[in-house]
């Protein structure tokens, strides 16, 4: 049964007038049969707006130059449908009865090139690969999409978000909770979920990823990166300036083309290649970092602190630095500070008379200093219980 309604406004100036006329004269409120159908022409760069009370939105992008809509449900009574067609966009809205006792899908077929602006107040959203921009919002349900050629904004109040590659910017939020999984992103990425893991491929721009609990994995961020989780690991392949924080879990970054600042309450921090300053704080766990600056100019300070754990640092042999390392120890074991270069043992209370520094006050801790290549960058390493090892590498 064909229940389609086509309407085209003549010009942009008359669009609003035409819309008002349509709303007044053609309130296309149609009772939908088990399968309903509507059709509107749309230009290649047009935009489809969909607003429905509920039900899943299923968008097929294999269409040519029209928007077609089918409603698939076994409980069709009371469903109302309205379609407005304009030169550059199409508006579709649907209302449901107070209670819908059967699954309901809005099946929408569109050309791949158009922009999509989709809203369902309750239901999942599935979108085939598309070349335009996509906005998809739902109060609950998962959002699944193929590759997207433009920008993407996807928000659900509860449910997972799984998307292929996005050529533009990406804003993906599952406010209630659900995993976020995405391929490569051509722009900036805002990824946020109340709970669940976040996984992303290569991001050309900056990344901000935050989860209430779950592991964050980013293959590459060519811009700056901020990753925050209340529980779980943060695993980064390559990134620019990096801020990473977890309440519990490991932080592992392979290559940082810039400064690194990381903090975990419980877990290890491993920075395998950092080109600028490094600040890492650990409640309990080891820290391993390697400074590999592209130039010795600029800020290359290092601050590594752990309450319980070992510290391993590698620095270039020509790095100008003022090094201070402090290691506490267990009840019996001696603190260990080892370096590839001589360090002066200054104890923990430098004002004590010579010979007493290792026996008084916090003398059971070990504190050593060194000035390398005339001094300069502050390198501060501290563990309350553990060992410190500093190695010099030739670049």
């Amino acid at each position, binding site marked *: 049964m064909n229940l389609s309604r086509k309407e085209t406004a003549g010009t942009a100036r008359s669009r609003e007038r035409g819309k008002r006329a349509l709303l007044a004269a053609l309130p296309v409120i149609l009772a939908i049969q088990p399968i309903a159908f509507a059709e509107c022409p749309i230009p290649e760069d047009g935009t489809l707006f969909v607003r429905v009370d*509920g039900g899943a939105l299923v968008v097929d992008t294999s269409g040519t130059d029209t928007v077609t809509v089918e409603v698939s449900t*076994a*409980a069709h009574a009371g469903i109302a449908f309205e379609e407005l067609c304009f030169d550059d966009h199409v508006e579709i809205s649907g209302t449901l009865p107070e*209670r*819908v*006792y*059967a*699954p309901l899908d809005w099946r929408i077929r569109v050309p791949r090139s158009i922009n999509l602006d989709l809203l369902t*107040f*309750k*239901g999942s959203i599935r979108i085939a690969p598309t070349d335009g921009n996509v906005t998809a919002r*739902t*109060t*609950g*349900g998962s959002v699944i999409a193929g590759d997207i050629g433009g920008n993407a904004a996807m928000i659900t*109040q*509860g*449910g997972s978000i799984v998307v292929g590659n996005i050529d533009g910017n990406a804003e993906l939020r*599952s*406010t*209630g*909770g*659900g995993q976020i999984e995405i391929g490569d992103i051509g722009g900036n990425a805002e990824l946020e*979920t*109340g*709970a*669940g*893991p976040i996984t992303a491929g290569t991001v050309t721009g900056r990344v901000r990823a935050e*989860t*209430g*609990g*779950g*592991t964050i994995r980013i293959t590459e961020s060519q811009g700056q990166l901020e990753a925050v*989780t*209340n*529980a*779980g*690991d943060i695993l980064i392949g390559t990134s620019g300036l990096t801020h990473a924080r*977890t*309440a*519990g*879990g490991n932080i592992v970054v392979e290559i940082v083309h810039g400064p690194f600042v990381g903090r*975990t*309450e*419980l*877990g290890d921090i491993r920075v395998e290649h950092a080109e600028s300053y490094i600040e890492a704080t650990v409640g309990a766990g080891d820290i391993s970092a390697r400074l590999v600056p592209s130039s010795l100019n600029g800020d290359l300070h290092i601050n590594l602190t752990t309450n*319980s754990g070992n510290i391993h640092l590698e620095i270039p042999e020509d790095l100008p630095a003022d090094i201070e390392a402090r290691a506490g120890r*267990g*009840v*019996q*074991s001696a603190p260990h500070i080892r370096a590839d270069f001589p360090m002066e043992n200054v104890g923990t209370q430098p004002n004590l008379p010579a010979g007493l520094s290792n026996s008084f006050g916090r003398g059971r801790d070990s504190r050593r200093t060194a000035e390398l290549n005339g001094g300069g960058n502050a390198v501060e390493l501290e563990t309350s*219980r553990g060992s410190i090892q500093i190695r010099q590498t030739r670049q």
Partner: protein
Amino acid sequence: MNCRERQHDIVLFLYDELSGEARQDLRAHLDGCEACQAFHRHEKQLQFELTEDFSDWEVPADLLVESRRELSDSLDRIDQGRQWWRFPGMTGVLTRMRALESVALMSMGLALGVYLSNPIETPVLQPAEPSIPQNASLTNLRIIESDPDTGDVELAGDMVQPMRLSGNLQDQAVRQILVEALQSLSNPGVRLRAVELLSPNARDPKIKETLMDTLVNDDNPGIRLEALQALESFSQEDDVRQVLKYVVETDDNPGIRVQAVEAMAPMTQEEAMEAVIQEAVREVPNEYIRMRQLQFVGGN
């Protein structure tokens, strides 16, 4: 003899532990004392319930084995926790076992005295000094007792020592540590990792029970979500289904409620109706969850 002493006799009477004369004496007292009559009725009822009404009890088949194991573990722990300077007879707690120990010690002492009176020289064993493991640190140290004259001192506190254990997830010890971590550690990152590691073995009853407990009680929604996903494949089992239903009705996080609803699919109409009501009275109901529940009510 006052009523309190009589009531002590009533208990013995009910278990046929009272002599004939005392029994007659008690009967005579019961005839004239309402308080003791009431106590007698109460104790008799209690005895009846304990001894006669056990047919309805569901006693796990492995209760005996489990109890023996726990008893054995507890005894091991007591043995391990016993300090070298604490001899059994010095505790001052007079139990039958202590009395036996005392008798045994006295016998040993007499034997030792006779033995030492012999002129043969024997090496005297000195008690080992308390030792502290390498890399250990002390916290919450307290001085329990000290005697400046003798130099004796008793200290107490927590000794923390780094631990590194290698094993396999199939090892009971490894699983036990992970379960313990999930139930007791405050750091959410460790709990999340524990769920991830335990999930493949969720068929193990103990692990399944721990995951269900985590799904209901853990503070962190990410950990609850991970536990839920681990339990999804068991959603048709009664115990898991009850937990999922509870989560749908009570969890504050809409993302977890959504996932729980999907895991329960298809809900029975009865389950769905209850859930619909719970969602409706929620301060901020989620429309999607309500719709899905109504769809289950519709029988689809």
